[in-house]
């Protein structure tokens, strides 16, 4: 955690923004949610290192 200030928790080490236990469609949905969340975080003001979750 050396320099990252906006951090979004992913699913898993081997499938960071996916989930192999979901169906293809469900996984695409999840992937979409991650991207949307990432873009939301980029538009969020923060004062210090903050960890976000998909919520």
């Amino acid at each position, binding site marked *: *955690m*050396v*320099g*990252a*200030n*906006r951090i979004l928790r*992913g699913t898993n*080490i*081997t*499938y*960071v*923004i*996916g989930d*192999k236990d979901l169906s293809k469609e469900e*996984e*695409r949905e999840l*992937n*979409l949610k*991650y*991207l949307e969340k*990432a*873009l939301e975080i*980029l*538009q*969020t*003001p*923060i*004062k*210090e*290192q*903050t960890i976000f979750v998909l919520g």
Partner: protein
Amino acid sequence: MIDRKIRVVHYINQFFAGIGGEEKADTGFSLKTSPTGPGIILQNELENKGEVVSTLICGDNYFSTDLEKNAEKGFRLIEKYKPDLFIAGPAFAAGRYGPSCGAMCRIVSERLKIPAVTAMNVENPGVEMYSQHTYIVRTGVNSKDIPDIVRKMVKLSLALIENKPDPNLVPPDDCIPSPYEYDYFTRNLIRNVFTKESTAEASVGLLIKKLKNEPFKSDVVKPPFDKIKPANPIEDMSKAKIAFVTDGGIVPMGNPDGIPSRMSTIWKEYVIDDLLPMEGERQYEVSHRGYNNFEVLEDYNRLIPVDHARTFEKQGRIGKLNPTLFTTCGNVSIIKKSKIMGEEIAHKLLEQKVDAVILTSA
């Protein structure tokens, strides 16, 4: 090992040469063919094992205005003496003298491949600048300690010249004198060392001390990490250029640029449409060996949400998706090197007028 008398060249500043104090700090280089100032103590300590054949002198201000250039100058003045050993200082806490000694030691040891030893206090900026390039014996702040320090410097020098393998180390680097025995600043290396007690014995012993509130020494002491001020948020995403960066090690098939599977110090930039086309055969592979690549090889979106990002760009939800991906392998990376890579990538991103980055990490 040297069978004859060791030829020593010594570097000192204008003060220790007797030229003058601060008012003479702008003096340029001069040479003497005999031990001078603390060099006399050095010669006494060497006894008949070595001879101080020359003393190089320079003013602290003069030298420190351009360390590299003056190190080069100084080197050219002394190389004709063909030394077996180079000694500088001791500089103690002197903030210009220290780096000057460090710079001289570095250039002489690199060019002539001989041991070079100096000595400084831990606060001296020369320690951070040069400890990995030469041997810097640890001193206090008091220059009255010169005889003791010179003794330590000579002891280390003789060990370096003897170049004897230490049975507690392994080749190829088994001739390094122990920084703990010879009391010099460590040179940014990490080595496995054979110890008297097993790791378990040491660990449990230290834990018992800790539990009894007795003083104990941890092997690893955490460094202070810089806090970095967060960047301002994007105002209007529909006008923003977003770039992807990853340390998950996605590379073109065949890994043509040879991004290593660990300890990578290189990153590369690849055109996303060529590397991760939505259709057709897979054009990428994964060089990162720190995780099972199976799932990412099945679907690159599991590491980088490229497909949705492409859609967002078409829909105008983001202004532009940067056409290139910056990739490296973040497996067992050295933090200093990662910082450098980050800076280099950041420069490129700024050149390409990227507004924000999504960095994914396995």
